[in-house]
C-alpha cells in the first residue's frame, strides 16, 4: 500500500548505504587507481550530501483536512 518516496534527490538512507558500500570497496583494495579515485570522489559527495541533509533538515508538519488535502500545521504554544 505504501509506495516509494518520490523525491528528485536521493533519499538519505540511499545515500548513506551507498557511502558505506564505497568505503567497503576502497578498504578492500585491489582497485585500479582511476576507479579508486572516482569512488573516492563519489564517496566525498555522498558524505557531504548526508551531512547536509542531517544538518539542514527542518521538520514539516501537515494537517489532514476532511477533504483529504493537507495544509501546513503550526504547532501552537502550550495552552
Amino acid at each position, binding site marked *: *500500500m*505504501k*509506495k516509494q*518516496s518520490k523525491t528528485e534527490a536521493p*533519499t*538519505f*538512507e540511499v545515500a*548513506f548505504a551507498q*557511502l*558505506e558500500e*564505497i*568505503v567497503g570497496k*576502497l*578498504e578492500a*583494495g585491489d*582497485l585500479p*587507481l582511476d576507479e*579508486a*579515485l572516482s569512488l*573516492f570522489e563519489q*564517496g*566525498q559527495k555522498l*558524505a557531504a550530501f*548526508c*551531512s547536509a*541533509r*542531517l*544538518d539542514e*533538515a*527542518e*521538520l*514539516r*508538519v*501537515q*494537517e*489532514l483536512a476532511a477533504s*483529504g488535502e*493537507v495544509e501546513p*500545521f503550526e*504547532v*501552537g*504554544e*502550550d*495552552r
Partner: protein
Amino acid sequence: MTVGDLTRYIREVFEVDYRLQDVWVEGEVSGVTRHTSGHIYFTLKDASAQIACVMWKNVAPMFGSLVVHGGQIVTHGKVSVYEQRGQYQLYVDRVQPKGLGDLHAQFELLKARLEAEGLFAPERKRPLPEFPHRIGLVTSPTGAVIRDICNVLSRRWPLVEVILASTKVQGDDAPPQIVAALDALYRRDDLDLVIVARGGGSLEDLWAFNDERVARKIAASPVPIVSGVGHETDFTIADFVADLRAPTPSAAAELTTPDRAELAAQVRALQSQLVSAMSGSLRGRRAALQSQTRALAHLSPQARLANLRQRTDDLISQAMSAVSHQMQLRRTRLNGLVARLDALNPLAVLQRGYAVVRRDGQLVRSVAQVSSGDRVSVRVSDGEFDATAT
C-alpha cells in the same frame, strides 16, 4: 399426552416467543459451577425471583470472567427448556458488568475477548522502518502532546514529514473521531508508520483508547502503528493491539526515529575511513612506484655499463694475478729442473775426479776396449790431455 409431549410443547411456547429469544437480563450471580466440559452453570437472581443460566464453553472464554458469585451482571441470551430436567433456563451468550462505572471489569472483558481473537499475538507485530519518510499522527492538535512529539522529531529526525489527523482524545465522541482519523490516514499510500498519541490521565480520561472500535481500527492498520497513550504505567487496549507500545507520546517519537546526531557522527566516521582508505591506497601505490623505479634504475644502460666496466677491471686483475702466479710456478719448476740438471751434469761428475776416456773418438767404458800401447784422450773437469795405455 406424555410428559415428553407436554415438556416439548412448553419448550416450543418459549421458543416461539421472539421476545424470549433475545433478552437482556440483569441480576446477581450465585451458585457458579464451572463444569469440566467448559460450560458454566449459574443462577441469576434478584429479590423476588431467580433463573437458572447456562453459558456454553464457546462463549465462556470471552465472558466467563464476569460470572462470579455475588457479581451484578447484565446478560443477554435466550430462554428455553432443558427437557430432561423440566427446567427452563437462560442460555447466556453475552455478559456486561452492571453499570459503566465498572470500567476495570469492562477493560478486562474486552482485553480477554480481543486476545482470544488473536489480535494481541506477537506474530502480528510488524517491525518499524529504519528511516521513516512520512509519519501519520493521530492526536489532539492542541496541548503538550503534539508539541512534545514535534520537539522530539525536530531534534532527532527532522527529515521526516508528519501528517496530522486531528481528533478529540477523550469523551464519548472521541472513539468515532479517532476511528475516522485513522481511516483518513490509512487511505493514503505514502505513510511509513502511524502514531496514536494521548497524554496521561485517569482511566476515564484514557477510556477512548480502550474502546473496541478504536482497538479494531488500530488492528486494521496497513502500516506499522505505534501506540503512545498515557504515562509509563498506563496500559490501554490500544497499546496491546498496536505493533509497538511506547510508554509515553514522546517515547513514541523516539522509538520510531533514528537520532541524526548519531547518524552525523557515523557519516563523519565514514568520511575519515574514506580518506584514510584512499591515502593508504595512494601510499601503497607510491611505495610500489618507488620500488619499481629503483628496480628500473638498476637495469638502466648506464648502470649496466658501469657494472661491466667494473667487471672488466676485476677480470683483468684476476687475469694478471693468474698470469703472474703461473709465471711464478714455472720459475719454480725451472729452478727445480735446473738444479736437477746441474746435479746430473757430467762435468760435475768430472769435478769429483772422474774422467771421460775416449779412443779414436769412441767412449771407453771397459778395459776390453783398450790394449796396451793405444793412444787415448782423457777429459778431465778443466780440460783434456792424451795418454798411452800401458
